[in-house]
């Protein structure tokens, strides 16, 4: 069978995602953790819609019921130097 890459950052194939769903992953977070799809440099910005569609199809749930994986900071890759050189006073801690 032709190899189709769904997550380009981590080179995760369609087959690997289907296997994880068969192994019992039922949410986007579980699927991500088992396959690394969405764990790379772009953090799922490129592949998450395709993965959600797959999860909906394989689990028989409507796409509207598939929750995206948890989004976390930073929004895009950020050099550590930006944080270490910043001013502590920038941080308003409540």
């Amino acid at each position: 069978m032709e190899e189709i890459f769904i997550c380009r950052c981590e080179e995760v194939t369609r087959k690997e995602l289907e296997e994880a769903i068969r192994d019992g992953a039922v949410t986007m977070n579980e699927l991500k953790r088992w396959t690394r799809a969405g764990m790379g440099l772009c953090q799922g910005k490129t592949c998450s819609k395709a993965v959600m569609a797959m999860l909906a199809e394989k689990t028989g749930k409507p796409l509207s019921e598939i929750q995206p994986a948890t989004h976390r900071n930073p929004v895009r890759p950020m050099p550590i130097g930006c944080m270490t050189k910043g001013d502590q006073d920038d941080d308003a801690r409540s």
Partner: protein
Amino acid sequence: MNKNWDVIVIGGGIIGLACAYYLTQDGKKVLLLEKGDIGEGASTSCDDMIFLQSKKPGILLTIAMESLDMYRKLAKDLPVDIEFENRGGMVLIESTSQLGHMENFVRQQKALGLDVELLDRHEVRKFCPLASPHILASTYSPIDSQVNPLHVMRGFVKIASARGLEMKQHTPVTGLSSPSPGHWQVTTGDGTVYETEVVVNAAGAWAPQLAAMTGIDLPIKPKRGQIAVTEAVPPFGKTNFWSADYIVMKLNPEFAKERDSLLNDLGIGLSMSQSHSGTYFLGGTREFAGFDKSVDRVALRLILKEAARFFPTLEKVNIIRTFAGFRPAPGDGKPYIGPVVSQPGLYIAAGHEGDGIALAPITGYAISRMIAGKKLPFDLSELAPEGRVQMWSTID
């Protein structure tokens, strides 16, 4: 109603899944209930280290060594690559006072059979050329290892399911009661009642809520661990790293005075490990913040500053993600593993704090042996809940 299950395990983190794995290996029919996603509380929001050097000499170090051996076997037995690796670990030392404490610590660990030694400045440079020149010395143990907890859990699920495990995610337990000794009723959010003879409370930071349903005061609190993840980079050294200043403070609380008070409030100490995909986990905090899973900027800045102090080159490296998890922190520093004797059929396997990944195999194995009424090849009586938890029912 039929008792369809030999054992109901509550909690689908690495501890609950390890219990399910070894119980089904023993031929038990197991139902596992998880209120959210698999490993949602702590087991997927952590690093990947089995760091024996950070364990206090005593029962925890002893069983961590046993558990490490079990991981070697699991690496062969599980049908997924659990990325087990024996990369070794270093505890980086920055001052002569830290060195004095660490020399003492290393002596105690060696006495318990841990292969660990001290490296001088030049040897540190040889192991990791990118380490900051201010680092005075380091410990080194070739035994420290790592494993991908996400893959371990997938392996446990896969094998246990093939042996008949039924697993229900997004199924919170709302009621737990025992109408007669050895007969348990577990009620879930949708009103379903499951009956069984044995219940295992493996709910991590949520274990006290479950324990309270049968009048047990289980002293476990959620400790938040915030961690940053870098992009994939070449290794900064041969091993994974910890900073001595946090370990020394843990062993000698008076040492805290030498540290910044904010670092102490947040429980910050460097832990740095590289995943198989090349990303580094930079940790972390150990702080009581209730069930708040957010990452805050003050803590993140301090974590990154710590990491860059040891490895200045990190300043040029990108972070791609941050996250936080709830380490289930036990009142007296030791996990609760064993039966609640006054409530026949009820077992606790919770309170592993930052050692959940390292201790999962031995915990699951021990619980399965206890439930089967078989002897354990090691003494876990120090971890028995008896005498360490309070029963409300004894009051009336």
